[in-house]
């Protein structure tokens, strides 16, 4: 059984590679736009810190770190899942989901893994480079336990992102052309680029539970500079599992109530 899914994923990778060869020009443009986008995030940080030395107890270097960790988590998620999940709404509204329901494979797997955005690899390389430069420029001490903790939190955040986007897109079963929910989710997730301490208590709780957006930038960066207590790490692990479980249950529930559009 596991072998079947593994082989399916191999095919998906192969397809994505040949797609990438076709659309190199597009990748170039996306790369350029991505650099502009990162540039804008950096300008934002510079503008904020032109008026102060720290926000909520975090200095400029740490905030840069949060942003870059967020970018990397977002990039990994984009590469693996975004094109697939974002297209769910259209699949449903146009009645094409039926195609996936008739295969002897879990529909969620097919829907989530159709496509791999290979172009993201180039971007990931650049972003990794930026991270490296940041670490050097702000003289961040690098130790094994903090690096491991940050890496673990980063990976967990990708799973949380996946669950969050899945839940959002599952609503497409009830609302027509709901794909722009992804823009809303994206807008909210930018909260993760900044320290949690700037928010009043209620919001802090919300961003760690119901709207889990604090996990992809803030937590890994906090862990990396040794400012995240061990119980936060434990909480992140437990929360990821619970949240993913909720997302999967919701998906199954929606699938049972599904009915397709006309020809």
């Amino acid at each position, binding site marked *: 059984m596991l072998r079947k899914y593994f082989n399916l994923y191999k095919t998906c990778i192969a397809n994505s590679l040949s797609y990438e060869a076709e659309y190199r020009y597009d990748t170039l443009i*996306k790369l350029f*736009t991505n650099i502009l986008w990162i540039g804008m995030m950096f*300008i934002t940080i510079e503008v*904020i810190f032109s008026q102060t030395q720290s926000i909520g107890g975090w200095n400029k270097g740490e905030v840069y770190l949060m942003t870059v960790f967020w970018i990397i988590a977002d990039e990994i998620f984009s590469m693996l899942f975004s094109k697939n999940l974002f297209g769910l709404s259209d699949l449903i509204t146009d009645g094409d989901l039926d195609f996936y329901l008739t295969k002897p494979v879990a529909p969620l797997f097919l829907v989530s893994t159709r496509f791999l955005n290979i172009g993201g690899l180039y971007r990931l390389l650049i972003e990794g480079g930026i991270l490296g430069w940041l670490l050097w420029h702000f003289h961040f001490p690098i130790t094994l336990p903090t690096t491991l903790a940050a890496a673990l939190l980063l990976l967990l955040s990708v799973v949380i992102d996946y669950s969050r986007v899945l839940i959002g897109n599952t609503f497409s079963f009830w609302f027509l052309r709901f794909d*722009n929910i992804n823009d809303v989710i994206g807008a909210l997730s930018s*909260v993760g680029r900044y320290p949690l301490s700037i*928010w009043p208590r209620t919001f802090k709780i919300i961003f760690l539970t119901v709207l889990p957006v604090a996990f992809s930038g803030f937590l890994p960066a906090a862990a990396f500079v040794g400012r995240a207590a061990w119980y936060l790490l434990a909480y992140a692990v437990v929360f990821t599992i619970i949240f993913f479980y909720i997302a999967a249950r919701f998906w199954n529930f929606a699938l049972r109530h599904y009915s397709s559009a006309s020809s």
Partner: protein
Amino acid sequence: MKMKYIHTFGNELKSIFVYRARVLNWVVYDLLSFIVFPFIWLTVYAGRSSIAGFDRADIVTYYILTAYISSMALAHQSRVVRKDIVHGKLNTYLTRPFPYLLVGTIHDTAYHFVTFFIATLVGLAVIFALPTYVVLPRSPLLAALFALSVILTYCLTLCFEELIGLSSFWLGETTGLNQSFDLVTTVLSGQLAPLAFFPLAIQSIARFLPFQYLFYFPTEIYLGKLSSQGLLNGFTIEGLWLLGLVGVILAVWRRGLYRYDGAGM
């Protein structure tokens, strides 16, 4: 007003109702996009009472205003225009007495008609909920001028969007152009933060460009930061930009049609 235009407006409203969840999403998106910033600035204000002439209430009001303008005064025509050109949908306009540019504008206006109501409701709710943080306009005249400037913001973004969309006649795919344009204007329009917060170099660039009239100019009016001379200058220059852009649009439209091949079936 010709019936066909009124009818188009009505049909678009009906379409919006069919996709009401989607439209609500857009409004929420526009309102929440920059929600981090008031909170960031408030912590920066920990030690002092004002930054670059903006006090606490000013800065919170600033972001409420920009959220409000974002949700109801920004046109989004470029994607539609690009699709119509690349997929040949222009054909149904070119073969009937139904002018494309005008009809497209009506489609977009209908959408903003709806978001205006939603955004205003939300705006009023916020004003009631946070009385200490919200600044109200000093006089009805300022409020009226603010309203006028927001309408002009819509007209200005409509022009930009049409131009980007029309460039599809030559470029085909314009998503990259679109995104780059959006990123640049976010900084230079005052949507990210008040222009006064930026280094002087960026401020001087922004003064030469029309983007400042999208967010910064309206908020300056509302917060009473402009003299009557400043108001006059602002509106005049914005008006000139608008006229210039409309001229360019008409010229580009004509030249673009010449290249158009009606394909994309």
